[in-house]
């Protein structure tokens, strides 16, 4: 009895000692955020004043000779690993573009598998240099977690899929319907909000496993299913007859997917942003893998000349070689080429460009002027 008591005492002392140590775990990340912020604002006023951490990540990547890119290893269309072990997908090609811009070779990238739980920590601790893992850009993540989000490269949103035979075309048609979806606060809440706003009644069936959602829906046990649109498209593509299903033209939530870097290294943040902008400028102006050499030699467009390193020392301003954008377009292609390769109509995960088109074609992708 005395021994048990002794053990209990020891245990409780230890637990008490552990508790305060364990709870502030996210604190180091949170505390760096305010510390870095004033330094960053100072840098914009005076180029000579560099915040702490400025340039560290680029230095690390160059010294290592490899980019460490955090990915999701199993996300059809965005990042998949084929049977030979090679990676492909929209996220994967974005990683390759960064590697091509920084190191001149898209192959110099280590794809580090991350999970929804480990991804931000791995970024904070430097296990990865950049996270391109279909990560939604939100306020809390941007502020609380000590992260910086580059511009979204894929504007996703929660959608609704129905059977074509049902004849449903808009949200109002689903009054009184049963809707299947994955368990998880946002999916449920977004739908509840949207339905409540229109005073529509429905029955929600919740599942832990996303595959169960689709199979239940496929068996006709619910009238509709809800998920992020990119997910709906992937799930539709695995049905026996994908044409039997329609994704309604309804968007219940905003899910902008963006690359993420850790706060405090603005040079690296700039590199990621301008890698995206370079992909978009090339898309907007029709510079492709095939014609980039020709464009570089002949184009009279001043912005393209700056982009491809004909004029100006743009690369140096990022700490990169002057051919940074040329390299990435030459080896990975422009944003449309990346899209068509992974999400184009010939793939099994076809998604319309829609709002993910260039601003000149009615989409939301808008590269800042390169000058």
């Amino acid at each position, binding site marked *: 009895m005395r021994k048990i008591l002794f053990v209990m005492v020891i245990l409780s002392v230890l637990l008490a000692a552990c508790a305060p140590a364990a709870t502030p775990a996210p604190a180091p990340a949170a505390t760096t955020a305010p510390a870095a912020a004033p330094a960053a604002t100072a840098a914009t006023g005076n180029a000579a004043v560099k915040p702490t951490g400025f340039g560290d990540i680029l230095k690390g990547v160059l010294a290592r000779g490899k980019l460490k890119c955090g990915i999701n*290893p199993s996300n059809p269309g965005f990042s998949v690993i084929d049977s030979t072990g090679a*990676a492909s997908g929209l996220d994967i090609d974005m990683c390759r573009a960064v590697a091509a811009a920084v190191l001149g070779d898209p192959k110099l990238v280590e*794809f580090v*598998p991350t999970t929804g*739980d*480990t991804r931000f*920590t791995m970024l904070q*601790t430097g296990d990865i240099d950049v996270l391109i893992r279909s990560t939604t850009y939100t306020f809390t993540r941007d502020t609380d977690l000590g992260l910086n989000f580059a511009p979204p490269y894929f504007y996703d949103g929660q959608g609704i899929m129905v059977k074509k035979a049902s004849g449903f075309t808009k949200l109002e048609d689903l009054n009184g319907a049963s809707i299947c979806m994955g368990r998880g606060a946002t999916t449920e809440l977004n739908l509840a909000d949207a339905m409540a706003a229109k005073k529509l009644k429905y029955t929600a069936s919740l599942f832990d496993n996303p595959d169960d959602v689709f199979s239940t829906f496929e068996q006709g046990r619910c009238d509709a299913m809800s998920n992020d649109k990119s997910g709906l498209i992937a799930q539709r593509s695995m049905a026996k007859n994908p044409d039997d299903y329609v994704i309604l033209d309804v968007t219940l939530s905003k899910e902008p997917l963006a690359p993420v870097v850790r706060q405090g290294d603005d040079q690296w943040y700039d590199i990621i942003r301008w890698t995206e902008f370079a992909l978009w400028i090339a898309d907007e102006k029709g510079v492709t893998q095939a014609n980039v050499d020709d464009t570089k030699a002949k184009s009279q467009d001043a912005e393209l000349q700056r982009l491809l390193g004909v004029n100006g020392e743009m690369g140096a301003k990022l700490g990169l070689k002057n051919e940074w954008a040329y390299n990435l377009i030459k080896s990975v292609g422009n944003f449309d080429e990346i899209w068509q390769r992974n999400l184009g109509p010939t793939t*099994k995960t076809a998604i319309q460009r829609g709002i993910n088109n260039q601003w000149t074609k009615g989409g939301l992708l808008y590269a800042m002027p390169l000058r």
Partner: protein
Amino acid sequence: MTASNQILPPPTERYTILNWLRKNLFQNWLSSIVTLVMLYVIFVSLRGILVWTLTEGQWQVIIANLRLLMVGQYPLQQIWRIWIAVGIFGALIGLSWGLWIRQKLAATLITLGGPFLLALLPVDTATRLTWVGVGFITAAGFGLARVFPRFLRRIVLVAWLVYLPVVLLLVRGWTAENGPIPTVGTNIWGGLMLSGLIAAVGIILSFPIGAALAIGRMSRYPLISAFCVVYIELIRAVPLITVFFMSQTMLPLFLPSGFNIDPLMRAMTAFTLFNAAYMAENVRGGLQAIPKGQHEAAAALGLSSFQSLRLIILPQALRNILPILTASVIGSFRDTSLVMIVGLLDFLGIARVVLAQPQFLGRHIEVYIFLAFVYWLISYIVSYIGQMIEARTGVDATRR
């Protein structure tokens, strides 16, 4: 001596199939009905699975991804390193079998024939030939062991001890990119190989740590025993998954920046420390089962407490805990699948990767059946080897 000669063996029943059936399945009308009903249920469920497996299952997903499932994204040009590890393993198994377990003919045939059976799998010719080679190496090991049993015994034991570090070094590599044995980053280790390595490291390292903790827990010195008790009870009060999460998401935040430990290393350490706590309790069970008289007898012979532990207590204790040791080895092997949750692509993790390939979307059942089969096969083999060792060390004889 004379008395024991007069004790007759118990009468043996004639052991025919008919006798057995009558005794076990059709003893009376009730048991006959139960037997028939159960046979029907088993038939129906098995038929469903078999028909599905043979006719509806689209096994192309496994055949196309066999390499990914086995070794993950390990580069093709470097796979020979894994084959060398497999070859040495085959040789060691052959040698050990020849030295210690050769009596069972059927099991011996299956062990020696295993690599040849694997060569029948739908893989490319080079892989088949390699498996045949591994088969010959295994058989050669067995033959050698039969010829030079005395000479080889010590060598094989030492070889088993250094096997794992050598394999880890070989798989990881040590030269630069263009050298002969280039380093392969742990981020592309995966598949069954990764599960096996995590399990092997965890089980093998946890054993000495666990034994030390068990002995420490029974120590006379309160500080040592308190430390061991707290360690064991704390770890055992926490699910393995939490330990993994701690190691992957919290530990890096405590470390000084720039001081990074490889994620796989973190997972292996966490797994080892977790297993050690359970191993400690297994060993303690064995230690406490040794009667006090043994300690006292050892002391009476003038052995120091360390000597008595090494020569008298531990050998008996370890033999006693063999069955539970086998069980915990199997349990640990299956526990490795939890590393998937912290982002490592072990056998289960890589299966998820395979399921995301656009051309194989929706092939869940095939992939998971394959996974279950492989996990079962390996667990069964471990369990069988455990039984062999038990029979060899006489656990059965002393306990029955």
